[in-house]
């Protein structure tokens, strides 16, 4: 099926999210949609999927115009979408999830589970998806859950499959597997719209690449285009993709975590006997797939949750009983992984957010009274220093782009002398230009003698920044390696292997 988008425009008030976008997706093509966060990719796809009503333009399927008022219409027309966040019922089986919303019965309302299971089995073997229809979704790894979503779309006879940032939640191995599946879908005639901001993936799988910037199509490129050229199209200026840095000169151990264990509310051991050291002037990268205990490790480190065992030593002082205020005051800078949830107050102005954890300092308050002029001075200073793009310092942070929101958080944490910097996913959902900036600032902070701990699920980021890499899997640190080791080895460790290549086959077969 050929999908044509002609002059699609979407306005929110006077803001134009999509401006006259035209793209043609040929049958059996993997068409990559590349753009920074906030470039308008999701808006475009939400219009295609009937979630948003276009302000102008039209969508053509095989040459005839169509209009979708709801996702139901889009599905009917053969468009399937796999969202970034899965829409699955965890306590249902794969087959039950697939038949959800179009249950087939054998009369008297008795569900025909058998038929659904057959359907899943059929699709699974046709596209080599390796999904067991009777498995409970909650027991499946994320990569397999994603395949269940794909099966759901295929069960609805999708001819065009939209994958919205599908690789964000996957291990490197799972990404490879997903790409295999995408190729197999393509061979059998399904068109795929692959939304991403990762250049490597686009080049690996795409047939054609359309780059979107600020709601406009800036160009279409073949996958042979060099990465830096694609990045330039995406950002609108030249960007350095590699972080410039000198070799680290590690000093004394500043922060040490000893045998930390965290048990969550459901009784699962989410952090299991973790120990590591962070040294002055060095970046320790903690790699791992999302959900392997990194979140809890860092929250416990900051005193936001209580560790069940273990010690945290800051300059040989036990700080494991401290709350966040004490840790921050002692010189730990903290960039939380979910900035809108923990990093800033969206309704607050840029000015206020820039002192969110500094307002008690003498510089910004005297007794109970805030020193508004000092707060404003600080904002003026930081906005310039960190190139925060905002209309005024009194704009609410929620009105800024993701990259600029993150810059507010980064600027705030860098505005006091630090002994340790703890940064979780410092560039998640941040545009390429801001990534470059934030990475450079982190390295600058390292060179100033700060011990830096970076948690990231993006291997590129880990490789770019870290001087040592600790890999987390299932709540443990499975190994600490130098960034010189091959990418594949770290990928395997992220999937639970202890680095020995022999175990690779076993891991690969697990899902089959």
């Amino acid at each position: 099926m050929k999908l044509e988008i002609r002059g699609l425009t979407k306005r929110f008030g006077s803001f134009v999210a999509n401006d006259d976008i035209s793209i043609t997706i040929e049958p059996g093509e993997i068409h990559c949609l590349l753009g920074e966060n906030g470039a308008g990719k999701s808006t475009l796809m939400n219009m295609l999927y009937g979630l948003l009503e276009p302000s102008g333009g039209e969508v053509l399927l095989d040459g005839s115009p169509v209009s979708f008022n709801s996702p139901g219409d889009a599905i009917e027309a053969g468009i399937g979408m796999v969202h970034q966040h899965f829409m699955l019922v965890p306590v249902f089986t794969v087959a039950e999830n697939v038949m959800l919303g179009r249950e087939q019965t054998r009369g008297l309302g008795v569900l025909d589970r058998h038929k659904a299971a057959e359907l899943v089995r059929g699709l699974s073997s046709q596209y080599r998806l390796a999904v067991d229809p009777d498995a409970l979704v909650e027991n499946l790894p994320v990569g397999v859950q994603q395949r269940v979503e794909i099966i759901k779309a295929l069960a609805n006879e999708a001819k065009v499959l939209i994958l919205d940032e599908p690789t964000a939640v996957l291990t490197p191995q799972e990404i490879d597997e997903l790409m295999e599946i995408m190729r197999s879908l393509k061979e059998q005639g399904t068109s795929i719209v692959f939304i991403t901001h990762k250049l490597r993936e686009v080049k690996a799988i795409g047939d054609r690449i359309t780059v979107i910037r600020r709601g406009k199509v800036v160009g279409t490129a073949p996958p042979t285009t060099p990465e830096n050229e694609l990045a330039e199209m995406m950002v609108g200026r030249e960007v350095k993709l590699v972080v410039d840095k000198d070799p680290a000169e590690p000093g004394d151990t500043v922060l040490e975590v000893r045998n930390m264990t965290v048990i969550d509310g459901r009784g699962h051991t989410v952090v299991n006997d973790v120990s590591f050291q962070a040294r002055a002037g060095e970046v320790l990268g903690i790699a791992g797939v999302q959900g392997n205990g990194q979140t809890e490790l860092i929250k416990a480190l900051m005193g936001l949750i209580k560790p069940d065992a273990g010690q945290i030593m800051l300059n040989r002082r036990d700080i494991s009983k401290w709350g966040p205020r004490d840790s921050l005051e002692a010189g730990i800078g903290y960039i939380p992984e979910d900035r809108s949830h923990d990093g800033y107050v969206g309704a607050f102005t840029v000015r206020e957010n820039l002192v969110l954890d500094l307002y008690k300092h003498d510089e910004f308050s005297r007794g109970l009274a805030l020193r508004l002029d000092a707060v404003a001075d600080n904002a003026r200073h930081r906005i310039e220093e960190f190139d925060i793009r905002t209309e005024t310092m009194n704009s609410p942070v929620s009105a800024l782009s993701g990259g600029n929101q993150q810059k507010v958080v980064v600027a705030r944490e860098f505005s006091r002398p630090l002994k340790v910097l703890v940064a979780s996913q410092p560039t998640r959902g941040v545009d390429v230009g801001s990534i470059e900036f934030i990475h450079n600032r982190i390295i600058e902070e390292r060179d100033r003698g700060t011990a830096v701990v970076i948690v990231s699920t993006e291997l590129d980021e880990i490789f770019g920044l870290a001087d040592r890499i600790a890999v987390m899997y299932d709540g443990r640190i499975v190994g600490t390696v130098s960034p010189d080791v091959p990418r594949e080895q770290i990928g395997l460790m992220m999937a639970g292997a202890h680095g020995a290549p022999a175990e690779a086959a076993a891991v690969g077969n697990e899902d089959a």
Partner: protein
Amino acid sequence: MPDVSDPNAPKGQADPEADAATKAQVEAAAHAADLRSPATWLPTAKVTVAAIALALLVGALLIVVSDQRVIESASYFFSYPWDFFRFSGEAIGQSYWALLTGAVGSGAAISQTLERAAPLICAGLGVSLAFRAGMFNIGAQGQLIIGAVCAGYVGFTFDLPPGLHLVLALLAGVAGGGLWGAIAGLLKAQAGAHEVITTIMLNYVAGSTLLFLLTKDAFQREGSNNPRSEPVDSSAVFPDILGFHSGVIVAIAVAFLIWWLLERSTLGFEMRAVGANADAARTAGMSVPKVYTMTMLIAGALAGLAAVQQILGHHDSLTANVAGSIGFDAITVALLGRATPLGTVLAGLLFGALASGGVQMQASAAATPLELTQVLQALIVLFVAAPALIRGVLRMRDTGGGATVMAKGWGS
């Protein structure tokens, strides 16, 4: 660790439709970015004025259908319609004219309006403050009652020099209300109890406590079986200035103080941060339980001050009905005032004017029942709470104004 201190944390993953909708709002808000520019508050002000106008319009209909002469003239409407329109016009005109003159038509009327407004402003500030910290304080009524008990007891029991007596009684009322509010704050901070539940329950406890005390010798008027205390001593009463009691000045001064607290102090910064995003506040090192407790303490103290206005305004006694419905009207006042101190003062004045003018309206030739003012109050807030309706009626553009802070009062 189960996080008891935070009922407002978003739970689960948003569905894509909601995602798209919020994204649209964010993007639409992006161009009216400066929170201090008129572009931000003007739409809100317009919606409020429009809501008042619409409420008066609906009120006019009610006046018409409840007027005896209008009803009679309707029976011969088709033979002589003029009577119907004339009587309708007269009824509306007389009622609203009486309402207006009763509210601001004379010095006495204005004094009456101000004195009626003062407790509404104080209690409304308490509700507004709690809103700003992300809490729905339904307990102003209970806090008021306990404040009245304390202020009244000091007012009629002790024999102290004027001035000192007033100050002590005032402080007793404020402390009583504050403690009652702090109970709900502590329960939320330490045990995770939702403040809506606890404040409602504490209202019952306060009301029953008052009834109980009024049967005891220490409170009940000597030689009487009625649930009524002695009136407070004249030494504990707010002195009159310019025809109204000076408690009104206290109310306005306190409104300014609360504005300063919210916008200019570190504690207010913490309150607003916790109200807008408790997780980020905690991550930034703020003590969320402390903020909840402090907020409810101050909110209760403000309700206690409202009680002080009631009981020390004139030589009043403590009765079962001493708080009237001020504690609940305060919620309406805070809603209409968009939980800002200035808004609360204006809303309190409006409601004070309606209450004061309503009496005259009932006495007017049209004899429109006093209850109409309550209907008007309710309608105004109803329209304010439905800004989309107002915009639809007036064909205003949606610029994101009119969205209220209260939307998240119940948590998620």
